């Protein structure tokens, strides 16, 4: 049964998406999305626990055995990432209903949910597939649907943001495609396991180096690694709230997963050791942390601040990858999970602001802290987590990352971690000060239908989604076994394949 789960995770959303377009009813499509993401989360959970108990899942598409056919190979690493993606998709959909009704025209709502499910399916596909060309196809499925989703934003800048993302994303994907082509030319196979066996024996080193460079740059563009992050801030800021939540929490993470998979699995560990890449990743990650936090401080709009903070947080993950150690990679994976939780939650707060106050600008939300205690209570938990205060998930990943950096005596990285955290204190405090310690200026509220005094009532779905994420943020801050163990298993699986190689 478990082996079929891996393919069901793709097939269920794939079938549901056109169904919603045909039935064309807003309410029905929300219910279907809820059902699909619920089932997928459950399946992903079974898959993940099953893998962690030691079973291996291979699924040969259409019965064609690898390396000829497309194989789905699940190990603890992609089991974990698939679960993260499904969990975030589920909570986003729970959150989405009222927010989407407010922000999207009612006749395109079914299309919105269809594109959402396609994006979800693409991201899950990237995680599950064991075939590198198939990975490219899923990457494009998720990217194309996210361009469409971002373009649905109310502000006209959503269109230009989506267009820029389309141009840069397609460039990245084409680089990745060229890299795959060179790997195919060098080895004649596309199966990732097969590639990792054959690559060390390849004679034509320049070809291999070119392929490596193209794949790294292509995926780094998709993952918004500094300095290739230019598409990210506008895309997250002007996208509909639901889309910001989902994309910020998953799409860059999945691209980073693809990067980890290509670096550690396809190209072997030893190949990386000889290249300039680890140093470059450390440098880029360090700069990203400082630069992203610096720009986040200067923003006066919640969503844009969160977007720049994402650039910084991606920097932490990249540092972990660049440390080239067991502990560093584990910290990266934990941070992928933790950052998905907290950034998803913070963008939910931004979504609630759009829903209730119709604005996310600092000047129009000043003094609202006391009037919206439920929302901003969660925001404070998220902010503490971004800073890395003990007792929240942010602390766990930063602590692990700092330990990994100390173990390798990368002092600059350690300093950057500390400075990044301090800067996070500044940008979070700036927001909290405006919310709690400034007089409530007459906020420019318009188009709020309900609620006598300017603040519309909060839908139940939003509260449930927001606070379940907030509680998870705290829960995983105390109970680290689940996340750290999952990450450790994933790292072990990655390094185990290395030992097979000569």
């Amino acid at each position, binding site marked *: 049964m478990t082996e079929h789960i891996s393919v069901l995770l793709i097939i269920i959303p794939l079938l549901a998406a056109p169904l919603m377009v045909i039935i064309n009813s807003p309410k029905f499509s929300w219910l279907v999305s809820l059902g699909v993401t619920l089932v997928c989360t459950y399946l992903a959970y079974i898959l993940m626990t099953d893998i962690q108990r030691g079973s291996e899942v291979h699924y040969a598409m259409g019965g064609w055995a690898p390396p000829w056919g497309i194989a789905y190979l699940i190990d603890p690493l992609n089991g974990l990432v698939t679960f993260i993606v499904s969990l975030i998709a589920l909570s986003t959909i729970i959150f989405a209903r009222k927010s989407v009704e407010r922000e999207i025209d009612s006749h395109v709502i079914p299309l919105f949910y269809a594109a959402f499910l396609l994006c979800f399916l693409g991201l899950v596909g990237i995680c599950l597939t064991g075939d590198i060309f198939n990975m490219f196809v899923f990457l494009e499925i998720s990217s194309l649907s996210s361009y469409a989703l971002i373009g649905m934003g109310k502000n006209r800048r959503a269109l230009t943001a989506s*267009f820029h993302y389309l141009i840069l994303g397609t460039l990245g994907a*084409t680089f990745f495609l060229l890299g795959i082509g060179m790997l195919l*030319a060098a080895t004649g196979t596309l199966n990732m396991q097969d590639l990792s066996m054959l690559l060390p024996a390849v004679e034509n080193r320049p070809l291999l180096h070119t392929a490596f460079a193209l794949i790294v740059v292509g995926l780094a563009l998709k993952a918004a690694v500094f300095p290739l992050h230019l598409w990210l801030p506008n895309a997250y800021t002007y996208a509909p709230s639901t889309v910001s939540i989902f994309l910020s929490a998953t799409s860059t993470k999945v691209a980073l997963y693809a990067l980890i998979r290509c670096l550690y699995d396809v190209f072997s560990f030893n190949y990386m050791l000889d290249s300039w890449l680890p140093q470059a990743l450390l440098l880029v990650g360090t700069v990203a942390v400082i630069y992203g936090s610096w720009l986040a401080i200067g923003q006066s709009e919640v969503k844009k601040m969160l977007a720049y903070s994402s650039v910084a947080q991606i920097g932490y993950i990249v540092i972990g990858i660049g440390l080239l150690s067991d502990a560093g990679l584990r910290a990266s994976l934990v941070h992928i999970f933790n950052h998905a939780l907290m950034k998803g939650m913070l963008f939910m707060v931004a979504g609630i602001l759009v829903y209730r106050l119709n604005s996310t600008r600092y000047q129009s939300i000043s003094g609202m802290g006391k009037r919206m205690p439920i929302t901003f209570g969660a925001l404070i938990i998220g902010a503490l987590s971004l800073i890395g205060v003990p007792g929240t998930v942010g602390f766990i990943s930063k602590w692990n990352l700092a330990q990994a950096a100390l173990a390798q005596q990368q002092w600059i990285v350690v300093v950057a971690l500390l400075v990044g955290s301090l800067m996070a204190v500044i940008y979070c405090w700036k927001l909290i000060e405006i919310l709690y310690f400034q007089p409530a200026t007459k906020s420019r509220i318009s188009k709020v239908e309900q609620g006598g005094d300017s603040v519309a009532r909060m839908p139940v779905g939003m509260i449930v989604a927001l606070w379940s994420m907030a509680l998870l943020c705290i829960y995983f801050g105390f109970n680290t076994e689940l996340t750290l163990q999952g990450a450790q298993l994933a790292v072990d699986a990655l390094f185990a394949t290395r030992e097979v190689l000569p």
Partner: protein
Amino acid sequence: MMTFVAGHISYWLIICLMMVGLYTLMSCSNLLKKIAGLSVFQTGAILFYVSLGKVEGGTIPIVAEGYSIYSNPLPQVLMLTAIVVGVATTALGFALIVRIREAYSSIEEDEITTMDHKDD
């Protein structure tokens, strides 16, 4: 040296094609031209794959008497998928341009940027 250049002539042409696409993409401020450049760039990648599969003196990959050498069909099959992706990207890009023109009544990037700055 000459044989190296002449023997890889298709790759040189593909590199030229991709550079033309990339340059158009970066230098033109007109959004339509940007998408055109992107398409040219993608076409370069597609041609790259197809020329990978070519075997000198080989026929198209068919099973028939008298033909023993044939091109590798795998890259061509892969490119069918990549062409579909490319078409979808171009279509989505055009759709966005139509919406951008409705919203800004311009498809020149510099004009759009000035309008955005005015909004701030």
